[in-house]
């Protein structure tokens, strides 16, 4: 019996030894680790960029790791918060809304790239959102320039062509939606009532945001915010949308042909074009504008992201050089990712390339990339600040009341109160 016991003890010892043997370092020399969140989109573009750089610098290899977007943000926040540099990548993709939150909460965590990257070549709003105290930290990647993606066949059946969608207001948009549904039976868009993206689009299209550039709440007593929220409430009350829950439901509604389109960022192009049988049946129009608001435009932004170099990275010289050469200058690279992934970068010089000028048969021969590039240049710059998620949550909490026709001023007061409470 003693032997059994000691054998048992020995095997436990072995197991513990086995566990500690797993503690091997995964780092290798001159390997640049990159975190991103969609293997078919930003992950694929990063692979293409990495291949180009490795071809010129065979000693530098890349390890591209993809996580779900929410997971990546959580990992990054946990690690930065822990104050340890252990396990961080060399380059990380961050969504633009969160840029300032990371830069301001974790000073010194990111490497300033000012002086190493030529920022004059990038869309100004992308540079601005990653700038803090005169230093710019990002290599601007994809733009979230918005458009109204629509099924041209459905809208044609209802009597609307592309010209009819130019220079419209949100009320006109609702009117068209009602008409399209009456004539074709298809709702105009799909909308997730647990998401405030549409309101953010409206706000930025008029150069407004939840916060002032110096970070104060710009919710109560802001005419632009009120106008945006009023238009948002009109849409909510109009019933021109299919109510969906979650991302898959949302994209499924328009990729399946159930609803006629969506108002979203250019990065949705890849998802829409993944239905080859719908080729020629789509179009893209500028988004409606806020009626009677000073500075209102038809251009806005939803999402979009940029690459950041981690300051503590051992390979930051290689990482910075890589971003500055491939992502910062290679116009041909941008043509390639535009064609393959539908990724619209923010490098303005890339607009002169062939791919950007080409018309797209999928969108009925429209020069969609040229259009998006033009709208991109017109996006009003705003300072997203550091509390976008908090403000979003406060807006979402009021959506049921707004949908039921609740008082706009009461909703603004409630949003303002919650934002102030949450951002103290």
């Amino acid at each position, binding site marked *: 019996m003693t032997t059994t016991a000691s054998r048992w003890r020995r095997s436990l010892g072995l197991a513990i030894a086995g566990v500690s043997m797993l503690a091997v370092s995964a780092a290798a020399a001159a390997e640049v680790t990159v975190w991103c969140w969609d*293997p078919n989109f930003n992950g694929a573009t990063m692979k293409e960029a990495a291949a180009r750089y490795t071809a010129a610098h065979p000693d530098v290899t890349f390890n591209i*790791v993809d996580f*779900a977007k929410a*997971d990546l943000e959580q990992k990054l926040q*946990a690690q930065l918060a822990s104050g340890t540099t252990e396990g961080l990548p060399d380059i990380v993709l961050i969504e633009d809304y969160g840029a300032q939150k990371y830069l301001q909460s974790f000073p010194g965590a990111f490497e300033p790239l000012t002086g190493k990257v030529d920022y004059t070549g990038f869309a100004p709003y992308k540079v601005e959102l990653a700038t803090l105290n005169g230093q710019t930290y990002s290599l601007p990647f994809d733009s979230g320039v918005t458009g109204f993606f629509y099924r041209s066949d459905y809208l044609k059946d209802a009597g609307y062509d592309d010209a009819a969608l130019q220079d419209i207001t949100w009320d006109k948009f609702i009117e068209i939606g009602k008409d399209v549904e009456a004539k074709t039976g298809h709702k105009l868009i799909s909308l997730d009532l647990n998401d405030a993206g549409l309101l953010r689009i409206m706000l930025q299209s008029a150069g407004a945001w939840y916060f002032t550039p110096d970070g104060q709440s710009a919710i109560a007593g802001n005419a632009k915010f009120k106008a945006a929220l009023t238009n948002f409430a009109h849409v909510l009350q109009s019933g021109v949308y299919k109510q969906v829950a979650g991302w898959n439901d949302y994209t*499924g509604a328009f990729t*399946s042909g159930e609803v006629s389109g969506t108002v979203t960022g250019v990065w949705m192009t890849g998802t829409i074009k993944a239905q080859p049988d719908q080729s020629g049946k789509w179009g893209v129009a500028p988004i409606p504008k806020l009626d009677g608001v000073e500075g209102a435009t038809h251009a806005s932004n939803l999402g979009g992201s940029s690459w950041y170099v981690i300051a503590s990275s051992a390979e930051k010289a290689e990482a910075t050089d890589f971003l500055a050469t491939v992502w910062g200058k290679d116009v041909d690279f941008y043509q390639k990712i535009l064609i393959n992934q539908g990724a619209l970068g923010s490098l303005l010089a890339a607009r002169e390339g062939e791919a950007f000028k080409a018309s797209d048969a999928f969108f009925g021969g429209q020069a969609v990339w040229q259009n998006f590039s033009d709208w991109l240049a017109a996006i009003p710059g705003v300072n997203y600040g550091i509390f976008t998620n908090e403000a979003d949550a406060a807006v979402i909490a009021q959506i049921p009341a707004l949908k039921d026709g609740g008082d706009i001023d009461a909703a603004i007061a409630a949003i303002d109160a919650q934002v102030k409470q949450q951002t103290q």
Partner: protein
Amino acid sequence: MTDQALPLSTTRTERRTTRAFNFPHLAGRTALYLLLSIAAFVSIFPFFWMIVSATNTAADINTGKATFGTALWDNTVAFFTQVDAPRIFWNSAFLAIVGTVLTLAVSSLAGYGFEMFKNRFRERIFGLLLLMLSIPFAALMVPLFIMMANFKLINTYAAILLPAIASIFIIFYFRQATKAFPSELREAAKIDGLNEWQIFLFIYLPVMRSTYAAAIIIVFMANWNNYLWPLIVLQTNEQKTITLVIQSLSSAYYPDYGVVMVGTVLATLPTLIIFFLLQRRFVEGMLGAVK
């Protein structure tokens, strides 16, 4: 309540009572089967849905198609080209098996210890442990990460395994189960000259095997499906587990749900197999292991 058990010598009056009692009994049985059937249907349906979805294209899944399709092969091929499946499954299996063995060893020992050797001080400790169980993990992740970083364990499986081995939950479970362990067995063994460790190994362990079987299922499942913490401490593609991979696949801008469903079917299989293997142990236990 069946009357076959009654001895043949039953008097007529007794028989009548038995028969009279049979009618509600029959109705009760029917209701019972109905209830169990509904429960079984509700429980199994999502699995059916998962398997059906694995044979459909993403577009069909989105429209709620509930019949078998023809895309199973394409989905499977796509899954195996996108994912380094052997490696990922090995990672998950390694973590789950090593984690289960260590957790059961350490935690059942402690559960047994707390129940068998009671003293006031240890009771206090136990009470404290229970209170610790109630702290949400989200609140402990950041300090735990800092600690792992200081131990240089980030990016290792040790970082995942070590905090889970002493599972307060499993300690609590074994302690409660030990209350049903007949103390005469322990006394008898002591008289036979076994020491406490021998009693644990050669008496307690075999007698409590249905308890262990249930615990294995639970711990294996928890390890296999573990998500939040591995996500934080693992940094490379090579180390990812199947749960992390599926979550990553399913949250792309345009996820291919057919492929995701193949992944979920494959990820569910091992836990199913463990369950079916150990189920026999349950049945054995039911036949009266304790008696």
